[in-house]
Structures are given as structure tokens and as C-alpha cells.
């Protein structure tokens, strides 16, 4: 494969030279594997590719030779044979044998890939329109829970600012895991089907609303690994990346400590009373991470699918009505449940919407959200 790799790199380099703005490195093959599974997939792929290339050259060697040597223009006379049982049997049996030669090594990898038993850490990953929720269920870090959202600014997407190196592949909260440990990923979704994928680990699993599925990976080196949602999940499907940071065992323990402390603080905040200004400030950030894609920065939404919040009856009406919609979502619309956010975040974002774009309808405190949670 190395020869081909070089040849294509040269071609790609030439193509890049021809293109303006092609300064970025060109990817044309699998990302470097960071797990044994990804390595096995790469090896299998190369094995099959070589077989294919040999067969392809063989078959089309015959075809192009016939095109060259058996032309009418060089006076070749057509022979009239049109049947031969022996060759028919041969070219049925030989491909079948080749398939068995392929199936044997592949089957072993399939079985290994499905083996999610005895994990060191189990993380539940939930797909939302359009972000990922992570809940550490078992193993070191149990109880940690956060939501991970794209951080690429809208200006970069709309071409008003230069695009950063990790354009569309950067998030606020990365999934952090220890190196060399077996991580079981349980997937599910809150609304529609999503798919969680980290190419460098060779791990991809659909996240299906109402069901649990699982996959696993064991990262063999530290570093940051990036992937994207691979199942069409609506308008912002292209904007919900997955970022996993693999760290050493010590760094992981440190990270778990920090997360636990932050969780404890958040639990305390639940009972505090905040000023309107504090809530609006915090709410603006929550809004930018969770709501802006549909309801838009100006709060006018994109009707009819995404209704406006500015001047909305719901937002300027009773607090309870709005809390219920944000907590539980509205069935059969794109408005989903935002239960995964904590009470402080919800109180903040609700207060923000009630006090922006000309709305003036008072504040909501965390305790009030807590009271409406079922």
C-alpha cells in the first residue's frame, strides 16, 4: 500500500498546488489508527484492496487486450464460440474460494468488535439535536455528566472570520478517557437517530432514540481524537462533532477530581437565588450553545419549523408554561426536552429569553425549575 500511498500523495500534492487555498494538509486515507481495532480495520482494508487490484488488472487486462488485438479495424475475424461449461464452473468456484479467504480473517475481527464485555469505564453517550451528552456510568469517574457542543463560531461558518485549524471539529466539553483502558460506549438518543464515530478508534455506533446500543474502544496513545455525527439528524447534522481526549492515568484522576468538585458546586447553586443580571449573563451562554441554531441570535427563529421567541406568547406568558416546554419538549416538533441541562442553566436560559429582544417578563430561579421537574 505504501507505493500507492506515495503515488496518490504526489497526485494530491499536484492537485493542491493547482488549487488556490489548498494550504491545508490533504487527507485521502484512514486517519492513523489509535486503537488495535482501527489498525485491524486498516489491515483488512489493505488486504482486500490488494486482492481487488490484482483481480481488476487481470479481468480488464483481458478486456483491453481484446479491445486492442481483436479489433475489426486490424482485420480480426470473429470466432463464433459461445459456450464452455468448464470455464463457467471455474469462474464460479474460484471467486467463491477467494470469498472464503476473505471471510475468515474478517469474521475474527467482527467477533472482537462486538465484544463489549469487562470494560474499565462505561460511558453513556446520548445524541441530541444537535449535540452530545456524556454520562459516566461505571468505573473511575462514575457520576460525571456533561453536554458537549460545537464551539466553532458562527462567523467562521458564514465566512465572516478566517476558519480555525479544527473548524467544525471542536467542542466545549471533550469526552476524557484514560489511555490503555477498555471504554464501553453505550449509545442512545433523545430525538432522532444519530451516530457516534471516532475514526481513529474504528468505533462507530448509531444512537437510537428509546434503545441502548453499545460499542467499545481502547485508545493506545494519548492525544485528541475527532469525529463527526454520521447519521442525518436534521438541520444541524453537520455541526455536532465528537471530540475525545485520551490522557494518562494520573491526568485522568485529576480530571475526575475537578469534574466532581464542579458537580458539587452546581448542586449547591441549585438552592441559591441569583440576580436577574447574573441569570441573563449565564443564560446568554446557554442560549448560544443550545438554542441559537433554531431560534436564531435575534430570537426571531425560522418559522414555521422554528418559532420566534421574541414577543412569543409562551415566553411572555406564565413561567410554568415555559419551564414545562423547555423541560419536556413539544411532541412531534423539533423542540426537544432539555432535561439534561441542570436547573441553574435552565433557569438562566429561561430568564435570558424572558428579558431579551424586547421581552420583559421577569426572572426564573433554579428552585422553580427544580419544582417542575417530574
Amino acid at each position, binding site marked *: 500500500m505504501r507505493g500507492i500511498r506515495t503515488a496518490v500523495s504526489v497526485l*494530491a500534492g499536484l*492537485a493542491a498546488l493547482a*488549487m488556490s487555498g*489548498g494550504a*491545508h494538509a*490533504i*487527507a*485521502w486515507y484512514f*486517519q492513523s489508527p489509535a486503537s488495535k*481495532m482501527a489498525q485491524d*480495520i486498516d489491515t*483488512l482494508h489493505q488486504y482486500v*484492496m490488494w486482492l*481487488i487490484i490484482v*483481480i*481488476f488488472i487481470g*479481468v*480488464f487486462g483481458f*478486456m483491453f487486450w481484446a*479491445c486492442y488485438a*481483436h479489433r*475489426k*479495424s486490424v482485420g480480426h475475424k*470473429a*470466432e*463464433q464460440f*459461445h*459456450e*464452455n461449461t468448464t470455464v463457467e464452473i471455474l469462474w*464460479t468456484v474460484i*471467486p467463491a474460494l477467494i*470469498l472464503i479467504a476473505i471471510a475468515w480473517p*474478517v469474521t475474527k475481527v*467482527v*467477533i472482537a*468488535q462486538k465484544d463489549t464485555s469487562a470494560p474499565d469505564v462505561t460511558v453513556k453517550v446520548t445524541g441530541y439535536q444537535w449535540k452530545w451528552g456524556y454520562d459516566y456510568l461505571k468505573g473511575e469517574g462514575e457520576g460525571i455528566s456533561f453536554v458537549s457542543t460545537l464551539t466553532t463560531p458562527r462567523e*467562521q*461558518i458564514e*465566512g465572516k472570520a478566517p*476558519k480555525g485549524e*479544527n*473548524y467544525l471539529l471542536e467542542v466545549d466539553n471533550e469526552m476524557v478517557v484514560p489511555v490503555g483502558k477498555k471504554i464501553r460506549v453505550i449509545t442512545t438518543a433523545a430525538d432522532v*437517530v444519530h451516530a457516534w*464515530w471516532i*475514526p481513529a478508534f474504528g468505533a*462507530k*455506533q448509531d444512537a*437510537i*432514540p428509546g*434503545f441502548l*446500543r453499545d460499542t467499545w474502544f481502547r485508545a493506545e496513545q494519548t492525544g485528541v481524537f475527532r469525529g*463527526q455525527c*454520521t447519521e*442525518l439528524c*436534521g438541520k444541524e*447534522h*453537520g455541526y455536532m462533532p465528537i471530540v475525545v481526549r485520551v490522557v494518562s492515568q494520573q491526568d485522568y484522576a485529576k480530571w475526575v477530581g475537578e469534574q466532581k468538585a464542579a458537580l458539587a458546586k452546581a448542586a449547591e447553586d441549585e438552592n441559591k437565588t441569583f440576580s436577574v443580571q447574573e441569570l441573563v449573563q449565564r443564560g446568554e451562554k446557554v442560549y448560544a450553545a443550545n438554542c441559537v441554531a433554531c431560534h436564531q441570535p435575534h430570537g426571531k427563529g425560522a418559522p*414555521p*419549523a422554528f418559532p420566534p421567541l421574541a414577543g412569543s406568547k409562551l415566553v411572555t406568558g406564565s413561567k410554568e408554561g415555559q419551564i414545562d416546554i423547555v423541560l419536556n419538549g413539544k411532541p*412531534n416538533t423539533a423542540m426537544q426536552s432539555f432535561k439534561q441541562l441542570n436547573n441553574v442553566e435552565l433557569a438562566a436560559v429561561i430568564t435570558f429569553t424572558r428579558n431579551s429582544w424586547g421581552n420583559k417578563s421577569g426572572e426564573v430561579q433554579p428552585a422553580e425549575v427544580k419544582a417542575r421537574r417530574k
Partner: protein
Amino acid sequence: MSAVVHDHGHAHDHHDHHGGYSGLMRWVTTTNHKDIGTMYLWFSFIMFLVGGIMALVIRAELFSPGLQVVDPDFFNQMTTMHGLIMVFGAIMPAFVGFANWQIPMMIGAPDMAFARLNNWSFWLLPFAATLLVLSFFMPGGAPGVGWTLYAPLTVQMGIGMDLTIFAVHILGMSSILGSINIITTILNMRAPGMTLMRMPLFVWTWLITAYLLVAAMPVLAGAVTMTLTDRHFGTSFFNAAGGGDPVLYQHIFWFFGHPEVYIIALPAFGVVSQVIPAFSRKPLFGYASMVYATSAIAILSFIVWAHHMYTVGMPVTGQLFFMYATTLIAVPTGVKVFNWVATMWKGSLTFETPMLFALGFLFLFTLGGFTGLVLSLVPVDIQLHDTYYVVAHFHYVMVAGALFSAFAGVYFWLPKWTGKMYDETLGKIHFWLTLIFFNMIFFVQHFLGLAGMPRRIPDYPLMFETWNKISSIGAFGFGLSQLLLLYIVIKCIRSGEPAPQKPWEGADSLEWTHLPTPAPYHSFETQPVIK
């Protein structure tokens, strides 16, 4: 086209042939297999342009990272409608058009078995297409869910989704009626002595395809009807909260969807099996094994559907079963490719446009078949599922496979249909432009997929930029090249040289050996006797 078919009537009486109507009503009321075949072909060409324009919107947006041309919502509507229109509006009707024109002529029959039903099968299509296009003008626009219409995303869509569901119902009805007609015609109206194993391979592939359609289309109708009742009548087929399962939709859809792949591919195999022997001046090699291979592919197509769903999380036994069954398809497909090459071997080859497209088909379709083999392997597929590798794979099968073979068929039979020759030089230019631009669009998409670019995204990380630029430039070249086909066909009809009865030396089916050019309005008024 109307003037042309009128010309056919010269030797006979006009009123007798066109049912007494003229102008538009003649086309609305016609029950003639050639008129209906012509309408199918023009309809599919128009849909090909409409779907093509949508593809160009997609490629324009993907020329650079970031959002430039359309918003993500409209982008999703484009990918959805491009897929639906190309599959149901362009490729399938094109091959039904070929079936209408060719089957009666190739089996020695005067017309199709159910002439009025034939008229209705066609005239359902414009209504379905209108519904699809109307969905763009509904609140919320057309559905942005992908042509696979996966639940439960479909439940979130606006009223455009319902129009699409009804369009799919009508398209399915049209296909089933057309298939019943084709099966009846082939089984009952063959000329004396035309036994099943003497039929041209094109007729065989259509017989098998028609059975696939009758078996598969109701399954799709069921899937979209369940979506409709989930949307409006409170059922929960695909909603876990009510006891349903979103994955059930995918199983039902692909139980239709995989046979659908062969519904498109088998008639293409049929066309190529007529063209290659004709330009090799040598009979098709291994006729019987071609028939058996086609049947084997059709039967296997019903037990491999879940290879589209390796990432949904099946038990390991399920994954292994579907992987083994899928790789098995390589055997009969290989047999077909070997037979085609053996047909050419020691022939006396010439390379007119139909042959060029058939060779392009053979070469590129096989490449698409090989990437299919790569994708059949569960671990590799899990890495490549829903990436541009899959997009590249199925466009090699659908475009370089089905579309190239349809082009081969058009150039091959155009002289018989119109009585005139097309411009050979322009035809060859059309072939080379199509071939080059096709590979420019889709070959590089293999690299995008390997490197990890998901499909159906309007915007992408920077490392994918170069291949996307190449692909987009190729797409515009490809689109423009197809206008050349339109020009060639119109030029042929208007001012082509008169064609002889058998312009292709090696062609040997009944339409060439027994019928004058252009073919008479009622193909065989007296059935020929095949010895």
C-alpha cells in the same frame, strides 16, 4: 418526437394508428407501446435534468467549507429530492421506457399485453413528480431526511413529507402496474418458437426485474404508510415511547431498498448484454449461465438488506449472516462480468458510441462492485458507513452502471426508433466527456470517505477541501455534457441521415432482423416464426 412517430405511419393509415386524436390528446390517450415508451424516456430525461440541477446545488455548496450558497435545511432538502427524483423519476422510468419500446419488438409481439393499463402506468408519473416538486412550496419546504426517509426524523417534517409519501405511493403503483404488464407480455405474447431460453437477454433481465418490482414496491408503500400514520394518526410503529422501534423502519425500507438496487441494475445488464455481442460480432458467451446468474442475483437481493445497517447494533450472528450473504452476490456478478469479457474475446470489435458506453459501464460498474465488496465486510463498513466512500460506491453503480447503460441503449436503438442515425462524432465526444467528468466527481469521493467525511453534510472540516473542489468542478462539467446528449438526440430526429434496417452489423434480435427502420407503429402485425 411527435413528427417522428407520425412518419412511421406513412405506409399505413394514420387514424387507425393514433386513435383518431392528434396533438396533445394523442399523447394523453395513446395506448401504443412506442408512444408510451417515448413518453417514459422523455419524462425520465426531464427528471434527470431536474435531479441534476439539485446535484449541482449540492456540489456548489460543497465547493468550499463554510456556508455560501444555501442554508443547511435547504441542503438537506436537496440531497433528499436529488435521490428520490433520480431513483424513481429518472433511472427507473428510463428502463421502463426501454422495456416498452423493445420487449414487444424483441419477442415478436404487436404491442404490450394491457394497452390501456400501459397508458395509465405512465400517466401516473407526472402526477407523482408534481407532488414531489410541490413539496418545496409547502410551509417548511420539502422533507430534509435523505431519500431513505428514516424515522423518526420524518415525524418532525412539515406537510411536504406527506406529499412525498403520496408521491411514493403513486410511483409504486405505476411500477407495479407496469411490471404486471411486462410479465404478462413476456409470458403470453412471444412469437411461436421463441422459447424462454431463446429470448434476448434484455427481455430476460426485465422479466426478473418485473418480479422484483412486484415483490419490493408494496414493502416500500407499507413503510411510508406506517410513517404517515405515525405522523398523523397517533400510531407508534417507529416510536419507542409507544412500543415501536425506529430500527424497524430501516429493516422494512431496506427489505425494499436492496432489491431496488437490482431493479435498477438488472435492466442495465440486459442492455449491455445486447450491445456487447452486437459490436463484438459474436454471440453472447454463456447465455444460459447469464440467465441463471441474473436469477441468482435477484434471489440473493432479498436476503442481504441489513448490510445497509451494520452500525445499528445487530447481534454478531446477524452481522455475520448478512456479511456472508452479501459477499455471495460477488459470485453471480463475477460470472456476468467474465461472460461479457469472454463475449468480446476473439470477436471482431468496433467502438461506436453504444459500445463505448457499454465498455465504460463494464469497467466502472465492476469498480463499483469491488467497492461494494469492501463495504460488505462488517468492520470495514463500520468505518466507512455513511461517509463519502458509500456515496462514491453507489454512484459508480447507479451512474456508471445504470446511466451509462441507458446511454448505450439510447444510442444503440435510436436509429430503430427514429429511422435516422445520430451524429457518431458528437456521440463519442459525449461519451468521453461523461466518462472523464464522472470519474472526476466520484473517484475522489473514495478518498473523502476513507479520510472520514460524513455524507449529507453542507459544510466540512478543512482537510476535505481539495477533493471537494475537484468533485464540484467535475459535477458542473458532467452536467453541461448532458446537454450535448439532448442536442444529439434532437439533431438526430430533425436532420439525421436515414438509417438502414440493421445499422449494426452484429445485431441479431428480431427488431433488427425482421422489422424495417423506423419500426412500424404496430410492431408485428403477424408474428414471425422463430426456428
